[in-house]
């Protein structure tokens, strides 16, 4: 697991208060929203805030949002491609 992926997993567990989940439990390719973790639309909005606040990446378009949050891998890739703070 690369550093950014590990970091984002930790952040998701923290902001979404997934106290019964460890980073290893999160499958990077599994469906993120509506999947086993029980993540829904409100969680997505909380993640949008985190992504903008911590990585300077704005997601304000529903279509892009749906794609970005479809899996953890897509989220990590999107941040990597768009964040001025991640090289």
């Amino acid at each position, binding site marked *: 697991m690369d550093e950014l992926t590990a970091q984002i997993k930790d952040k998701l567990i923290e902001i979404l208060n997934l*106290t*019964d989940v460890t980073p290893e439990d999160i499958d990077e390719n599994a469906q993120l929203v509506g999947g086993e973790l*029980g993540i829904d639309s409100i*969680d997505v*909005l*909380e993640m*949008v*805030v985190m992504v*903008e*606040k911590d990585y300077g990446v704005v997601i304000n378009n529903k279509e892009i949002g749906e794609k970005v949050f479809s899996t953890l891998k897509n989220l990590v890739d999107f941040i990597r491609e768009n964040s001025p703070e991640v090289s």
Partner: protein
Amino acid sequence: MSSKRPTIYVAGVGIVSPLGTGVDATLVALRNNSPAIAPLHVFSVQQQPPLPVGQVDIADVGSGLPRTHRLAIASAKQAMVGYDCIPDAVIVGSTTGGISRTEKLLAEKSQDATLYKYHGLGTVAEEIGKELHCTGELLSFSTACSSGTVAISMACKMLEAGDAEWVLAGGADSLCLLTYYGFHSLQLVDKKGSRPFDVSREGMSVAEGSAFLLLSTVKPEHSHGVVLGSGLTCDAHHAAAPHPEGTGAEHAMQKAMDDAGVTADDVDYINLHGTGTPENDLAESKAVRRLFDFPPPLSSIKGLSGHGLAASGAIEAVVSTICLENDFLPANGGCEEADPACGIVPLVTPVSQPVAAILSNSFGFGGNNACLLLADTEKESVQEEVDKAPLSIVGKACITGAGHTMDSLGRFFTLESMAGTLETKTVAEELPPRAIRRMKRFSQMALALAAAAQKDSGLEQSPHAVFMGSGWGALSETYDFLENLQDTNEQFPSPIDFVGSVHNSAAGQIAIHHGATGPNLTSSGGDYSFEQALLATEAFLGEKTRYNTAFLLAADESHSPLSPLLDVSSQLSGVAADGGGSFYLCRKAIPGKVSIRSCFYGCAGEKGIEEMIRSLGGREDIRNKCGMILAGIPAARTQVGEQQLDQFMQETDLDVPVIHYRKFTGEFSSASAVATVMAAQLLESGQIPAGKFVMVLGFGHTLTAMELALQ
């Protein structure tokens, strides 16, 4: 047995909204069909440009009251014009109370508790009560965007039951940082202004306003219409989003029509909730289409007025009376091309045509649905004799600093204090972590209380309805939202905290976890919130209806730094304490079970104690039946409370044990709910002489009396 059902006349109306002040200005604005939505200017924000909102031109100086209170008083006074009478009760729906002032005080880091005195939602009703010299029930309901409609529905129930002849009911909310940024954080705000049912709609426009209806069973000289029926349901689906199929909304509309004794064919116009959010409008449309094969003319006025939140239902009820009186239907402002997915075509221009019956919809967070059926003339109808079956307690639970139910009660029975704050982890120890991951202390406590009351009942079936009280609601979420807003220059408000901050968030969660699709009410009247929730239970829980079982509970969380700033009693005690009590109730006589009844609720005026004694059956009756008194005197009202209790004891000449329950529970608003659990336990464990009742009395600026008895 049946009897003629009393007609509920709209004797007076008052309205203050972005559309204007008063009925005449509102009608002109609706005829002009021009949106009153503009960039925010009533306070400054750091994130630019300001979003479009609906704001009211009302002076910020003068009375010293916060904006919500001033909006409320302005429309309440309008509704009373032409009447010398004093309403028997005032019922207010509000979500904001004095939060706009609290936001400023917190930003200034003010530690002066006296400045926070208008924070509580209940203070809005109290200030109207003072203004109108009302000494009856001053009640407050907070069910998010359905609050105003819920308040009107409660008024109708009280009038129908004959508990009152004149009730002033409505709603009020002012713009504030919490709602302005809260809905924005949920991406529910349309930057172009709200355009309900438009194919390209992107959300709502947060607004403010207030409206009140003077309702009466006495036929007034000039009636503005009649309220024929109301319907309350809960989606029990999601904390913020409506059920995608609109099933809860459909049931609320159907219930309102059934209650009114009308069919879909009788409805001439539907005033839609229509916020402009893609989800609401779609779900509401589906519900309308299932109920109406050929929907009548319909529109949402929120594209013109914005969404006045708790006030919106009352604003739209007043607008409905304007429509009935003027044979006028307003247009669905903002909608240029109706969304084909919705499958309904709202009015694009105002229409003049006869209208005799209107269905008005209000839906809110927590899946809270409330609908009214208003008509131009009375309708002969009969009603079943008023339900006399008792509310039986089949399960109960409490939480205090001493722990869960038996740990708390054990402490009480050894005459030790239970005051304190139980660790949140322990509060929620029986709840699945996934279920509570987005909840902070208040909601976790409420959910734990409901689950424990159900477990205690031994019943598998969950109750249908939820009636909850809380003096202060979700303090953690409210504080965290505002602190985070300030820390990030208003850039990164938390959507999760916003959703959790509404007063009815906990009751909504209880409904979701227990599948409770019946009425779902949250009252917030300071130290008397539990007693208000009991009044609502008595009003809405019927023996012969589908909804004959309910959770009745109250809870409050201790929060640092907010609790000592907001709750003077908490500050004076110097000991942080919180908790709550809950019941699983059935509306039927169950021999061997304890029943609970509200006997009195009113202001502590000159004759308060006298009236209280009369409501309890008079001196002789009280002496014959009372076995024990649990007295609640909030620390902030020690002197007056002690005097009231002395007067009560002297005038009744009672010689029974009197327990000052706050000495055991500690000082918090929902302490009376814990005391009521204590009372039930005393009766169940045979510690009260056979045939005797336990009275749970509340003193202070309000006087309350509840009676518990073994059946």
